[in-house]
């Protein structure tokens, strides 16, 4: 297989069979529930009739055979300006992909690939299924060759990138050119994560925090678990004193947390080991992974929005997480037909310090948006109107009343004769009518709900106040940064000229108080700034529209 031989049909290396087996298994098991259900059913069948167990080796053989067949039928041909990929055993597909439609190349290396010096290439395409544009287990020279061809196919795009980026190569006549040849190995290394950083990522796992909180709350139910485990355990457990029972429960909780932590750390190392962020020409690339190494390449000009966030634990570590979001919906240059949906790769830096984040922002935004900041503690962030607290308090307390209604009605309802009707109401989702059925229940339920509502207001107000304190916005001539969060904090920053559409909305309360909410839709999502002064919101909208409409720079 020689990458310098265009026009010939090629196969990938036989190690791609592993990839195809993986893809076959993936196509069977779309969801976790499906897998669990299948294995459950199989286990029951085997218990009744052990001969059914033969299904398992047959199934495994079939999957391997499918992998081999898919490998045999997979061919690709590289031409001057395009790549053809033919694949499929029963349903054949022929992909003809011009290089100027390729948005980027992402590379993944599994453990086998790395030992053998192979890579799995995925071509990010505009508007077609990404799974089709994958070349499994090819040599890394071929990947570099492809990357070179793709870069060569669009000199114009590479040049306009410079206007948004920070490449200083501006010649006297103002024409910007990418002068440097494709970097040999790693270009300019911007960030590397060490083992200590990855341990921090493991500790800051959001799911770990949730699991610990969950166990803390439901730790008591372990008593119940212990009862069912074993009569001996039960006897020992119940025979012991209350103090020992409590200690056992606490021990269980700590054990679970430690196990969860171990898993979280393992996951962090698997995913982020050796994380490196570097710049190569106009693109930013990351590489990470312990066994399977993943590479993400995002062109600077494709980035629509930067999101910096930290949860409580990251905040303790004084670290942040940065995500650069490219357009999710890549427009179709053809025009009339609908653009296909494609989730582009997100450039993620899982852990970085504040100054590093700011440095990256200035690199990614180039000379625009200098006065923006991604750091949530920046004093320049302006608060939104305090009426936001009022609206949010109302929303939270009313929601709590709606949740409480069925419970309260159930507790206060004495008359057993209305149970059937109650069930009907419950099924039709009109449970709130059930108090009407029993005499003397309407009063208590209404009173109870009213008291519940009153009681919930202080809590709701506190929650709303915390949310309001987190909410903020900051803008300069080129862009806007919006801050939000509850436990953690998050800042979304974008350049005005990247906006796709701008909405200004007003609720009845906002209309009365002369306030409005600004929604800026970007190609990767939306940024909302609630409860602004109507004048500020309208002026920001008008200014943003003017920036978008007068900008001659490409937004993607």
């Amino acid at each position, binding site marked *: 297989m020689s990458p310098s031989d265009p026009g010939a049909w090629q196969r990938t290396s036989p190690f791609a069979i592993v990839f195809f087996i993986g893809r076959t298994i993936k196509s069977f098991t779309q969801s976790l529930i499906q897998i669990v259900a299948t294995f459950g059913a199989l286990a029951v069948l085997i218990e009744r009739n052990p001969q059914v167990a033969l299904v398992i080796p047959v199934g495994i053989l079939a999957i391997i055979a499918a992998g081999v067949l898919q490998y045999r039928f997979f061919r690709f041909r590289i031409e001057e300006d395009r790549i053809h990929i033919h694949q499929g055993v029963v349903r054949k597909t022929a992909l003809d992909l011009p290089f100027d439609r390729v948005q980027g190349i992402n590379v993944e290396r599994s453990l086998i690939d790395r030992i053998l010096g192979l890579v799995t290439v995925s071509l990010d395409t505009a508007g077609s299924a990404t799974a089709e544009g994958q070349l499994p287990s090819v040599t890394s020279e071929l990947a570099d060759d492809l990357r070179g061809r793709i870069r060569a196919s669009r000199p114009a795009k590479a040049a306009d990138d410079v206007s948004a980026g920070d490449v200083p190569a501006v010649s006297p006549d103002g024409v910007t050119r990418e002068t440097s040849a494709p970097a040999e190995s790693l270009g300019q290394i911007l960030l590397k994560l060490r083992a200590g950083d990855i341990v921090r990522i493991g500790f800051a796992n959001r799911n770990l925090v949730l699991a610990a909180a969950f166990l803390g709350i439901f730790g008591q139910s372990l008593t119940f678990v212990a009862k069912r485990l074993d009569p001996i355990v039960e006897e020992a457990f119940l025979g012991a004193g209350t103090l020992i029972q409590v200690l056992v429960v606490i021990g269980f909780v700590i054990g679970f947390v430690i196990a969860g932590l171990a898993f979280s750390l393992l996951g962090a190392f698997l995913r982020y080991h050796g994380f490196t962020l570097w710049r190569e020409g106009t693109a930013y690339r990351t590489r990470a992974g312990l066994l399977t190494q993943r590479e993400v390449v995002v062109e600077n000009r494709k980035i629509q929005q930067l999101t910096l966030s930290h949860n409580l634990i990251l905040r303790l570590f004084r670290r942040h997480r940065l995500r650069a979001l490219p357009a999710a919906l890549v427009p179709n240059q053809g025009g009339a037909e609908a653009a296909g949906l494609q989730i582009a790769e997100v450039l993620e830096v899982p852990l970085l310090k504040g100054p590093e984040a700011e440095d990256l922002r200035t690199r990614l935004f180039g000379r625009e948006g200098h006065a923006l900041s991604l750091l949530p503690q920046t004093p320049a962030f302006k608060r939104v109107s305090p009426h936001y607290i009022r609206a949010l308090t109302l929303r939270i307390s009313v929601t709590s009343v709606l949740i409480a209604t069925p419970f309260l009605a159930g507790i206060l309802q004495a008359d057993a004769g209305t149970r059937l009707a109650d069930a009907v109401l419950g099924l039709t989702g009109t449970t709130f009518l059930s108090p009407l059925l029993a005499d003397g229940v309407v009063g208590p339920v209404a009173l109870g709900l009213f008291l519940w509502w009153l009681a919930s207001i202080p809590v709701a107000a506190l929650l709303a106040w915390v949310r309001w304190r987190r909410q903020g916005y900051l803008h300069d001539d080129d862009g806007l940064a919006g801050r939000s969060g509850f436990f953690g904090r998050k800042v979304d920053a974008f350049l005005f000229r990247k906006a796709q559409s701008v909405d200004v909305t007003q609720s009845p309360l906002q209309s009365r108080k002369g306030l409005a909410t600004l929604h800026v839709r970007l190609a990767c999502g939306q940024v909302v700034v609630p409860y602004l002064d109507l004048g500020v919101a309208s002026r920001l909208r008008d200014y943003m529209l003017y920036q978008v409409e007068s900008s*001659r720079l490409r937004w993607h």
Partner: protein
Amino acid sequence: MFINPEVPLESLPGADNLDWLPLHPRFVRRLQLGALLRVLVIGAIATVAYFLMKGGDSAALGRFADSLLPFALAGFGLFAASILIWPMIAVPRRGYVVREKDILYKTGVLWRSVKAVPFNRVQHTKIDSGLLDRRFGLANLSVFPAGAGGHKIRGLGTDTAERLRVYVSERIEAEAIEPEDDQNSPLPDPQAEASAAHENGPPADAG
């Protein structure tokens, strides 16, 4: 640090004082007919449900159906009246404006919104009209930028919708950013570009 934009904000074309174009007058009738059909279907389902509950074996269920009847009738009456009258309130408050560089659409009576989509961000447009729309000679125009967003202007006359679509398509072509421009023209300085484009920009609608 907050920096006030150098471009005087007051002189920017504002979207506050615009002459909003109304939707087609027949659109109210079309929505009312749609609402009437919905009322009839819901009424029919509710009637069937009532007689099923009465005719069933369970006496409790029958009693329950009877006790619910006045509430159901009152609620249904209110619901029917409100959705039949609502278009007469809501439709006059909707409107759209086509400017040189963007298209705006406003909706809402209690919860109001003004949406703006610049032409140089529009990916494609779409006209559609359902069975009822065609009966009234109406069509809906949708404008899609990249990502989620954009708007669907409902209740335009068929001719208006087609004319608008053609105009929007022309504007998209005119506003399209040529990659070649970027390559050959000098690197635009954001400040200079901003002020230059502003002078040539559309005249301020707002006084």
